[in-house]
């Protein structure tokens, strides 16, 4: 069974990788990182960040809300401590980067371009301080502007991570492609809210947060399907994947690879099960190359 897929400048041994923010060094205690298609870090920022106030998580029906607020130690400590840890593993390392302005994004991309890093995932779903806190990926013009600057700052393959919180999804996708992105990650969390009726207060400290988990899968599958028709670069599907069939659904919709987020919390070994289930499916259906399934459900 040939499980390899080509994604934005990289050849992956299989299409399954973790979603940013749901994976870290500690996962090496639970699963063999060498079995994954790639390793994706939580978003790293130019400077250390404290993150949002607690509580940062609330469970909802078949999903969860989070407002972590990208807590982290910043790019300097990341390059010094985290990159060497991942060099021990053969799966390619994809570093997610997040910044407040386009220039900061470019500086950050250049600082993250170090040996051991195989690609950058540009988290343009985060708030843009130059545009009243709306995220870059809500708007094609802002998307193109920030990605062109990042493109000029690094030679690494660039994956642009889009937000589902826009009415201009395909235009944003095309803007990212035009700016030189090598692949698109579709998508980040859906902006949402939950209220505790007993206390009459929002359930998370930040009031609003990002919805993830099985509840969002049909929405994001639709977005992958639409995006795949609008661009020529590969797409990485991300949203609510819990099983091999969920991952296959994304491939059939047009994704070349998938990211698993929330389900890593439910079952820390989930990504390994998903890979095994995809292989079993391919064997059962006489598919010799998993890549042959990409976009098979697209109506031409």
């Amino acid at each position: 069974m040939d499980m390899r897929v080509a994604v934005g400048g990289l050849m992956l041994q299989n299409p399954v990788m973790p979603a940013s923010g749901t994976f870290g060094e500690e996962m090496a205690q639970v699963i063999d990182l060498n079995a994954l298609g790639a390793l994706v870090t939580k978003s790293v920022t130019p400077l250390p960040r404290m993150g949002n106030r607690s509580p940062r998580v609330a469970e909802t029906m078949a999903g969860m809300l989070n407002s972590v607020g990208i807590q982290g130690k910043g790019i300097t400590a990341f390059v010094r401590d985290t990159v060497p840890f991942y060099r021990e593993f053969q799966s390619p390392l994809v570093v997610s980067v997040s910044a407040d302005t386009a220039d900061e994004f470019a500086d950050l991309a250049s600082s993250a371009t170090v040996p051991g890093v195989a690609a950058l995932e540009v988290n343009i779903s985060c708030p843009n301080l130059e545009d009243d806190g709306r995220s870059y990926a809500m708007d094609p013009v802002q998307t193109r502007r920030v990605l062109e600057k990042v493109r000029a700052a690094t030679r690494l393959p660039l994956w642009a991570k889009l937000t589902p919180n826009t009415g201009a999804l395909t235009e944003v996708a095309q803007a990212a492609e035009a700016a030189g992105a090598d692949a698109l990650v579709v998508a980040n969390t859906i902006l949402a809210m939950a209220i505790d009726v007993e206390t009459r207060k929002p359930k998370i400290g930040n009031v609003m947060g990002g919805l993830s988990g099985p509840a969002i899968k049909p929405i994001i599958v639709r977005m992958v399907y639409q995006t795949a028709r609008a661009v020529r670069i590969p797409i990485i599907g991300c949203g609510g994947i819990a099983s091999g069939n969920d991952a296959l659904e994304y491939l059939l919709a047009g994704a070349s690879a998938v990211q698993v987020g929330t389900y890593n919390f439910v079952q820390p070994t989930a990504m390994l099960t998903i890979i095994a289930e995809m292989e079993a499916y391919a064997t059962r259906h006489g598919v010799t190359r998993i890549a042959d399934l990409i976009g098979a459900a697209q109506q031409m």
Partner: protein
Amino acid sequence: MGAVSTVRSMNDVRKAAMRELPERETRGFSESASGGMRGQSESLAQIGGVLFNQQVSTRYWHLAVSAPTAAAACAPGQFFYLRCGDDGEPLLRRPMSVYQIHRERGELHFLYAVKGVGTTRLAQLRTGDSLDMVGPLGHGFTLHPDWRGVLLVARGVGLATLGPVAAAANRMGIRVTAVLSAQTERDVLSESYMRSCGACTLVVTDDAGTSGVAAMRELVANILASEPIDALFTCGSQRLTALLQEMAAERGLPGQAALEEPMGCGLGVCYCCVRPFARKEGIEQLRVCRDGPVFPLAEVITR
């Protein structure tokens, strides 16, 4: 003699369980990279066999599972992240600290209050069912062999978390005094277990009007004045934590508190369970699941 060797073996076991993760001192932002975590595949993911799961009062249940590997690796104050339903409801796991560790029998016990969907599902487990558990997780309590006596003050489900501390202290020859606080007498479930571990227990309840802050302050002050207490341990109440913090600071006593916070991963990767702590270097945002759940009493910021 015996006491010292217990501590050593407990620390060794805990080190093995932590898979050479960064030491306590390097928590927070300064986490160091460690190649030592490699190749420990699936070691924390376990299936326990339910031995019994009994309702022990109106709200509380006592669950015992057979899980020899986990029991051998588990230290007081650590927790397990339990899957409560395998049909996707609830989606996330539920954190439960370990209430009794019986290494020789390969058993772990939990004491839990039925609150919402997760614990309701947990209460449906029957003898012979399997329980999907991740753990042991987090940093537990530390006991010092030189200590003469320790005071445990817990409320509600916090009583469960302090159970194994009483047992470990007893094995080390440290005298345990425990003040157990609950709504009603019937909810003070760990009293007989604590007594069987040689603890001297005092029960206070809302019903009897003995659990208020003023009454507690007097009770704890009397204990500290009349007994050789070298450290304080607490869990289960912000109010009690604040009170003990104050009393420990006045007397220059060390203390430890076990905290709770809603979790995502339970493993330390997602930063969902973070809350602020007052550390020497200033306010730090630490993960309850990984840097805790047990923290130095003085560093806890109550809310």
